[in-house]
């Protein structure tokens, strides 16, 4: 017969944080790997778009002119991928988990809230970094791009900081989304303007001056610029101060808003009855 005995009181020593966190990161990576939208918009589509783009500039080879064309394209497509994973997928899966009661169950489990979020954001950042690595590998294969280890480190630093900023903003935005059905349109309204205004798909010089200035303070353009600089080997390991400051500010702001306003419970219509 199955033993369903209770543990002796006092014998309870809960598993250590490291073990719990490792299990949670693995869980979040499994969820991402089994999320077709994350795979398509975060990995497949950016790589495909880059491959098509490289077809047009391949004749320039690994020349300075070629790199000048290639670098902003790779930077823009990295932004496209990172925002798809760390903003769109991260926020929409959080909303679905909340509305399905998954977050409520985690909250009732002996799992610290911070551990859940640390794991989810860690998995998101790892996936965004992987998207960046895939884009660079495609560029290396098709455009004979070569990168130093310092450039790779710089790329990962920028990618990580950008993904962290997007994930923090995405977490905060979930407060404004009341149902799983409304997640997609609300996030599209955030994600698409952010990507297009960053110059990810072409120059934005034709925009009004005030708008081009404003977008430098959004979390998208600093990612494109920093990645481009890395690929053009014109920067150090860290992103430029302005870009780093903008991303850090979005990260801090997103985290603060999330800490204050994040909701674990599914949205419920208010009681209209009176006693």
């Amino acid at each position, binding site marked *: 017969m199955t033993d369903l005995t209770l543990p002796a009181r006092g014998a*309870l020593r809960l598993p250590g944080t490291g073990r719990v966190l490792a*299990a949670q990161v693995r869980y979040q990576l499994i969820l991402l790997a089994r999320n077709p939208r994350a795979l398509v918009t975060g990995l497949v589509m950016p790589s495909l778009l880059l491959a098509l783009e490289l077809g047009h500039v391949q004749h320039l080879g690994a020349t300075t002119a070629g790199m000048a064309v290639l670098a902003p394209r790779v930077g823009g497509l990295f932004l496209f991928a990172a925002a798809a994973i760390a903003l769109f997928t991260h926020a929409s899966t959080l909303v679905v988990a909340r509305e399905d*009661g998954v977050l409520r169950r985690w909250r009732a489990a002996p*799992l610290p809230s911070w551990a859940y979020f640390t794991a989810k954001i860690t998995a998101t950042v790892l996936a965004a970094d992987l998207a960046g690595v895939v884009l660079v590998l495609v560029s290396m294969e098709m455009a004979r791009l070569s990168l130093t280890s310092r450039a790779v480190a710089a790329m990962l630093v920028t990618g990580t900081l950008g993904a962290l900023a997007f994930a923090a903003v995405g977490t905060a935005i979930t407060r404004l989304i009341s149902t799983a059905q409304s997640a997609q349109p609300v996030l599209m309204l955030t994600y698409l303007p952010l990507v297009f205004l960053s110059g990810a798909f072409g120059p934005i010089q034709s925009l009004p001056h005030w708008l081009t200035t404003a977008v430098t303070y959004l979390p998208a353009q600093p990612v494109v610029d920093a990645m481009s600089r890395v690929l053009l080997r014109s920067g150090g390991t860290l992103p430029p101060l302005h870009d780093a400051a903008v991303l850090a500010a979005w990260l801090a702001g997103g985290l603060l808003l999330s800490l204050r306003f994040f909701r674990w419970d599914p949205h419920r219509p208010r009681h209209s009855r009176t006693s």
Partner: protein
Amino acid sequence: MSAFTAIGADSPISVSSLVKRYGGYTAVDGVCFQTPAGQVTALLGPNGAGKTTTIEILEGFQSPTSGTVRVLGVNPRNGGRRWRARIGLVLQSTSLDAQLTVTEALSLYGTLYARPRTIGEILDVTGLKQDARTRIGALSGGQRRRVDLGIAIIGRPEVLFLDEPTTGLDPEARRRLWSVVGSLTAQGTTVLLTTHYLDEAQHLASRVVVLADGRIVADTTPDELRAMGGVPVIRYRLPPDAPELPARLASCLDREKNELTVPSADVTADLGTLVTWARERHVDLTGLEVGSPSLEDAYLSLTRPAETQGGREEVLSHD
């Protein structure tokens, strides 16, 4: 007065003068009860009676407007990780990641506890061995409820909250869950159950607390609750062309269903009237039943709105 004497200050679940209001609507209104350790207490009541609100306050999801609740001696709103490791819960609706397999979900939750049950044990007691590698999204509603239960008990909880756990389960799965709950209580787990199935309460609970409009209307044993249903009942479905019944019986006829239900203080006399009528008019009495009131009769008489039953308002038994 409560029928329970073995409940003390160290009762695993203790609720005192609990009130929960949502704006002008009072969902729970002065509820008090304590649960005996190692037994099943069933919270019964119609939809909107306050069962889920009460259980959610006990689980720590909601704050009471006023009153005191303690689970394992702790205010659930302040319950930390160690306290949460001592309780298990099956929420009213399934709350699992559809992309995980059954085994992945169980092993993930198992990492949170000091001495979790093995995956094999859980698959065995929930009857999910065949589906161990199936993704939760591909399971039926009843199978998902069983995964819910498996997760709830994987940490060997001292207190288990079951919020309508058998909704959507087939009869075999219900029986299996009942058997699991029986094993758990035999080993000392205290269970608080909400259910709409009175046979479930009858089978599992040593005690039932009936809520209606946010208040306790009965706090007793299932047998005593059944006795509250009143006098024995004579039931008989009339044939379609049956002649007119005697006046005493005709008032108890549901003409839509053509069903006679006679609450009878004197069964012999009422049966005599019915048998005489049937003999004289050559009516076949096959299907005639005489029985004590069912738990359902008792429950309905307690929870029916006051205006439909002549203004019953008194609390029948209370802590």
